[in-house]
């Protein structure tokens, strides 16, 4: 299990290969990549800056992975989240979950991403033609996280 918060980009293929290497128990790997869009709330986005809470960010994501491990069979998991200034088409976040079978891998990957959106202390600021603005939290993200509650 691994959590990385970093400014530099990541290589999805390399991370996938690293996870399955030497672990013959893995039968399924699900991954999610979040990407910067060029339009948000109807306005074009030139760049985006991600701020976070060093220390708490890593801790919060580790706790989310632990929760996923309590609910599904998770053989390994990786979360990489970028911070700093990003532009449209850049990768922001990577979640990879390895399991024996696909059902657990898909579910745990989606769960981790839904919880990350609402629990991990990151904040986005967009630069648009109208100026800089902080992105507001979405009700739809809260709803996505809530549906996992038992």
């Amino acid at each position, binding site marked *: 299990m691994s959590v990385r918060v970093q400014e530099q980009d990541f290589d999805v293929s390399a991370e996938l290969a690293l996870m399955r290497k030497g672990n013959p128990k893995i039968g399924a790997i699900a991954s999610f990549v*979040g990407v910067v869009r060029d339009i948000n709330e109807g306005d074009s986005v030139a760049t985006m800056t991600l701020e976070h809470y060093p220390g708490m960010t890593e801790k919060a994501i580790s706790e989310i992975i632990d929760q996923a491990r309590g609910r599904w069979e998770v053989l390994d998991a990786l979360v990489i*989240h970028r911070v700093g200034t990003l532009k449209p088409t850049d990768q*922001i976040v990577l979640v990879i979950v390895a399991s024996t079978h696909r059902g657990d891998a898909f579910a745990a990957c989606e769960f981790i991403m839904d919880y990350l*959106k609402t629990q991990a202390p*990151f*904040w986005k600021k967009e630069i648009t033609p109208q100026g800089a603005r902080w992105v507001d939290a979405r009700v739809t993200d809260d709803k996505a996280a809530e549906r996992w509650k038992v």
Partner: protein
Amino acid sequence: MITLLYFARLREALGTGREQLVLPAGIGTLGALRAHLAQRGEAWAKEMAAGRNLRAAVNQDIATADTVIKDGDEVAFFPPVTGG
């Protein structure tokens, strides 16, 4: 002494990201601390107002108004998160 941290929109509105504060007598919970900070002036009154959608953490764990605060704690206030 406690460490106070402010992030994102809140950091900009308050003009500070970090400060040390001697915990005033009688302030023992996050809710009481927030009410205390709200008395600091216009920007503070607006950002720390009870109706304002604000999140907080004590020692890097998500906290609520009832969370106990003691000397040496790290207390952070921030807007709802928008990562991913």
